[in-house]
């Protein structure tokens, strides 16, 4: 690849007290590339996601966006670079309605500085119905919505604001087959638009279909990275379990 990747992590290390959650992780995602990050629970996937989203900083290591070294002091910094995250928990405030969640932290204001509720409701409804036509009544607390509808709110919010890298943490874990297929369609569409996607999953079969590259994490370290078309489900599963590549492992 001639261009610099959109995001490049080098030697990312994270300690929580005595726990070494990440040990020198290198990872990059280019524009329009779907990279899957797989591994067992506790492999460090979520920690890596939170570092990339600006939830907390790494203990050591570099983050480069478009080749420029940077640090994320807060989630706002990461968003500022076009990095949006859909958390497995969805990170919605259950007491608020869909438009309020949609614009949480970046509310639209009237010229007098008050909340522009009408415009927020209109824009959120438009974005949501585009994504999920079943969302008819958006102005109620998201607590009352189904799992799929809640996820639609989280996805719509993430892709609405000039996203360059979309991080999806277990996007299909709580979904039925139909909704899972919709998420797959969405990933393909965003990829075609040149948006980089980091897909966190433990479902190897799923990511074999979707990813351009699969990166395996175990015990806070990168085990290796494979291209699905040159690899097999078995090889990836084996890497996840053994923490190393098969002797006959093919180059990426």
């Amino acid at each position: 690849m001639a261009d610099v990747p959109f995001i490049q992590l080098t030697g990312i290390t994270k300690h929580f007290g005595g726990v070494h959650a990440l040990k020198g992780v290198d990872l990059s995602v280019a524009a329009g590339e779907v990279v899957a990050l797989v591994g067992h629970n506790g492999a460090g996937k979520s920690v890596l996601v939170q570092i990339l989203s600006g939830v907390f900083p790494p203990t050591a290591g570099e983050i480069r966006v478009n080749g420029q070294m940077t640090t994320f002091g807060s989630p706002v910094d990461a968003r500022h670079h076009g990095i949006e995250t859909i958390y497995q928990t969805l990170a919605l405030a259950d007491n608020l309605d869909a438009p309020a969640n949609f614009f949480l932290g970046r509310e639209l204001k009237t010229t007098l500085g008050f909340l522009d509720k009408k415009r927020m409701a209109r824009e959120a409804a438009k974005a949501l119905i585009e994504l999920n036509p079943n969302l008819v009544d958006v102005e109620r607390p998201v607590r009352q919505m189904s799992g799929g509808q809640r996820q639609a709110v989280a996805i719509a919010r993430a892709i609405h604001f000039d996203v360059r890298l979309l991080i999806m943490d277990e996007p299909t874990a709580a979904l039925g087959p139909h909704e899972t297929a919709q998420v797959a369609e969405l990933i393909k569409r965003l990829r075609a638009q040149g948006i980089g996607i980091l897909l966190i999953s433990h479902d190897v079969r799923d990511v074999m279909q979707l990813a351009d590259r699969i990166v395996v994490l175990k015990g806070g370290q990168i085990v290796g990275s494979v291209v699905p078309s040159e690899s097999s489900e078995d090889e990836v599963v084996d890497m996840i379990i053994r923490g190393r590549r098969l002797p006959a492992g093919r180059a990426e």
Partner: protein
Amino acid sequence: MSTSVKRRRLLGRFISPIWMVLIAVVIIAAFISDRFLSPYNMVTVLQQGVVTGIVALGMTVVLIGGQFDLSTGAIVMMAAVMALVIGPSDPASIALAIILPLMSGAFIGAVNGLVVYKARANSIVATIGMQFFLFGAVLAGVSGQHVRTDNMAAGFSGLANAKLFGIPLPVYLFVVLVVVLSVVMDRTVFGRHVYGIGGDEEASRRAGIRVVWTGTLTFVLSGMLAALSGIFIASLVGNVDPSAIGGYAFPALTAVVLGGTSLSGGMGRPSDTAAAILVIAVINNVMTILNYQYPIQLLVQGVVLAGAVAFYSLRRVELAP
């Protein structure tokens, strides 16, 4: 969704149950005693409600953010004592007797807020701790004695006692505070963020909300309003017994809960707290008219608080802002 549920929700958007309770209580009170509706008595009801009401407004905002401020009673006391010790006898000291307690209330609120949101301490325990600290500090400061001002200037005593069209000034101020806080909570980014934090603090942080800053501000607001309440008490009576006037946190919390503010945060409205304050004031007033003594009033207040908590948990009100 059935139409009846829809209709109920639509109605609930404009009239909270507590306002209907208020109307009912006023009608019942009017039937019980014809003295109740006399102008003099109405003014008394309002006056009694307002001092606690101002405290309750601040606690409402803190609780919408998901935290408790139980130090308010001690802040009321501290502010009242401060105002009287400063001795508002001339215009310059009147200003001081208002500004210093307010600033102290804001400062204590800031400490509360940082302890809760920055150090992540449990707010119930932290603010009770603050309450004891303030009680101790003030009682030590005045050696446990009554505090009085003999030469209180008319300007200072007028704060709480002056009337416009027969209604005391604090009542107007209370109405203004309710309107302003309603707008702030419903129409501003700050208000929206307080609801967000109360709904899901971690989600709010990840959404880029400055949780520590916003949350601390709710405590600052609560501290200042409690101090304002204390200044009114000082102005109203001109002397206070520090060991006797610290009990405002509990009645205020009763009103906050009765008004439907969720104990787990994220739901509630200042205007509903105001309605609840009036409900309690009317009930207390009727009991006074009927010659029920303070112990009975306290007992009824306890039943109202427990009843309200039970009612709202059963109903699981949906008060999305």
